[in-house]
């Protein structure tokens, strides 16, 4: 037979346990909106029974373990998808900037500047001797070279912008890896005492997750609860400490290297990768193509222009219209800027002849690119639509990736999220148990009174 003290003891244990469970509930409710918070649960178990003649007598309840309700598998998937998502987000952001820069299809883009330039030579063909029209030709030339240079400089500015952003991202990555390795040290030292440092684990998971948006990390956990984060095979955060990443210039490209070994690190996903792709591939490709258009335009116009004659006595000849070799340095030749009469329209020096002006106006339709299969305009139009479809593909993939992530987030919330309804129900449940245990204490107290009164 159990003594009254045993009953009192089990009631006391019940009060403490229910209170503890309530405090876990309260912690959950308090953190309902905390990013990265994982709901916790007090696992209640019946405490060690007492052995009596009649058999084992229960001694009540105790808290076995306060654990996190978290699905590691979903975490892994979220990280993988975060990397893809980050990559796409960064690409979209910068590609849209290029798109805004080229400003097509409008009547103020490069395409329109080209049309107006060639149109002005058509006007010149009709009035080869008119100074007013020569002035228009010059202005349209200035407008065209300006359009090329504006695009060229804008794209180069974009590259230097990405350089700054890459340094920012690296700074954040290095900060995160430092914090992750510190948290890991804390967690593993607690785990030795068989205590689960839930909130520190949440923090570490949150930081790893932020890191996964930035760069293609791989996370491995050893049996003792310590995590190791690596990028492209290079360990960047572990209990032993963090390894910083830094940039290194190779030619015109920017590479990411480990500051420990100086070896380059393979970045193939995450925001950092998205920016690097735009920085090292998309923008330079676009610039090369723009250069190609500019240099072909310069060469073709100059070769026709220099063979013709301007106005004057004797009419000038051999003058180029443009100077420069590409989109960065295309300009109007000084001889044209100094004297409008050096613009050539005539093929033989006769002031009324317009064969050169007509030929230059005709360059617009000439297939002078891609081995004589593509006109300047066609080349440019496909450059623009190529960018458009790249943005489209990235945008569609991003939409899909967003959906996947929100699905995963939902799944994770289903496991780890705090539900106020549920916590309130638990609260009532624990409160009732607390009330009941208090009643038991009361009853035992009455039993004691009865016994004492017998004396």
């Amino acid at each position, binding site marked *: 037979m159990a003594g009254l003290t045993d009953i009192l003891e089990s009631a006391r244990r019940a009060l403490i346990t229910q209170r503890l469970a309530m405090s876990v509930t309260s912690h959950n409710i308090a953190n309902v909106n905390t990013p990265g918070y994982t709901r916790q649960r007090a696992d209640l178990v019946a405490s060690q029974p007492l052995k009596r003649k009649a058999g084992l007598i229960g001694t009540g309840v105790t808290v076995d373990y306060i654990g996190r309700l978290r699905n590691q598998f979903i975490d892994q998937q979220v990280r993988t998808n975060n990397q893809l998502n980050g990559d796409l987000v960064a690409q979209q952001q910068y590609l849209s900037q290029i798109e805004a820069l080229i400003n097509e299809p409008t009547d103020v883009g490069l395409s329109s500047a080209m049309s107006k330039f060639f149109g002005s030579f058509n006007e010149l063909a009709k009035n080869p001797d008119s100074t007013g029209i020569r002035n228009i030709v010059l202005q349209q030339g200035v407008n065209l070279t300006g359009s090329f240079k504006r695009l060229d400089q804008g794209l180069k500015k974009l590259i230097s912008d990405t350089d700054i952003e890459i340094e920012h991202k690296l700074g954040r990555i290095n900060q995160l890896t430092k914090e992750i390795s510190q948290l890991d040290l804390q967690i593993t030292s607690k785990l030795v005492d068989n205590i689960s440092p839930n909130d520190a684990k949440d923090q570490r998971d949150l930081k790893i997750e932020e890191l996964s948006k930035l760069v293609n990390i791989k996370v491995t956990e050893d049996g003792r609860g310590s995590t190791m984060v690596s990028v492209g095979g290079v360990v960047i955060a572990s209990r032993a400490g963090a390894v910083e990443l830094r940039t290194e210039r190779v030619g015109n490209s920017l590479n990411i290297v480990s500051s420990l070994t100086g070896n380059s690190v393979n970045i193939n996903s995450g925001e950092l990768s998205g920016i690097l792709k735009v920085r090292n591939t998309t923008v330079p490709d676009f610039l090369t193509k723009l250069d190609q258009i500019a240099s072909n335009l310069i060469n073709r116009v100059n070769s026709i222009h220099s063979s013709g004659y301007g106005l004057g006595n004797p009419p000038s000849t051999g003058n180029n219209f443009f100077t420069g070799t590409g989109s960065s340095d295309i300009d109007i030749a000084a001889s044209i800027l100094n004297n409008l009469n050096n613009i050539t329209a005539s093929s033989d020096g006769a002031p009324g002849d317009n064969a050169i002006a007509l030929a230059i106006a005709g360059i617009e339709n000439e297939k002078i690119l891609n081995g004589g299969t593509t006109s300047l305009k066609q080349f440019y139009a496909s450059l623009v639509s190529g960018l*458009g479809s790249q943005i489209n593909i990235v945008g569609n993939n991003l939409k899909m990736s967003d959906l996947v992530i929100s699905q995963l987030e939902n799944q994770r919330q289903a496991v780890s999220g705090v539900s106020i309804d549920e916590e309130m129900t638990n609260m009532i449940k624990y409160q009732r148990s607390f009330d009941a245990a208090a009643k038991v204490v009361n009853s035992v107290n009455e039993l004691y009174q009865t016994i004492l009164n017998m004396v």
Partner: protein
Amino acid sequence: MMRITENKFISNFLSNINRSRDRLVMLQTQIATSKRVNKPSDDPEAANKIILFQSALDRTEQYMKNISEGKSFVDATSLAIDNFTNILSEVKELLVRAKNGTQSNELSIYAKKIDQLLDESVHIANTQFNGKYIFGGTQNLQPPFVLAADRSSVSVNPSGISGAIKFAFGEGVSQTVNINGQEAFRGNQIFTDLIQIRDNMLNGQLPTALEIQAISEHFKYVTDIGGKLGSINQTIDNFEKQIESNKVNLLKLLSDFQDADIAESIVKLKQEEMTLEAAMNVGARIIPKTLLDYLR
């Protein structure tokens, strides 16, 4: 069973509202600009076509301008040639009249009349259009014909009076729009003949049949030039018709690729508005509800 937390309601609500607003912004831009493609990524294929069609349209408009200016030039040339043929026909009439029964003392009056017509004809041959001599060939900044001060000869511009002026009337199509002085007036042959006839009259010589025949021949020649101008005009008219129908086609194609169907966009906008409103309504009803509302 899947646990549904309050925060899930909120994040779902927000992402739905965001998606809806995203579509609203797109529709709003379409309606405001009345364009379906405002940047290349809206429809890359269409953006490509729009740039090329727009360029083609710009060129077509340029050709139309060229055509209208070309026509004015040809019209001015035609008018001058007409006037010139009138003068030649007047000369011919005078010569016929002078030949048949003229007193030798009247010859000087005819000669004076011919001299006046010579003046007029040189003047016509030096007709200017937009500040340029239309019969000057490619040397059209100087008068092609100069009547000497002693009126004994008409010299041609030493830089030349030949050369063709071409205008672009279509892709790869350039059409000569001028008749140069060499072609129109056989160099200075006609003027030289007129001077000869005048001088012969002044010398008391009646016009000969040969002289009359020469003028008739000149008349026929210049009239043919007028006919040639007519056919140039006809050719330009044909180009104009082609270009105009081209322009109509291009405008239609451009519109097909570029323009938003406003009616459709507005209907979609209305639908989207309704969706947004419904989402807001449902969100407003569900989100604030928790068990707490019922625990008293």
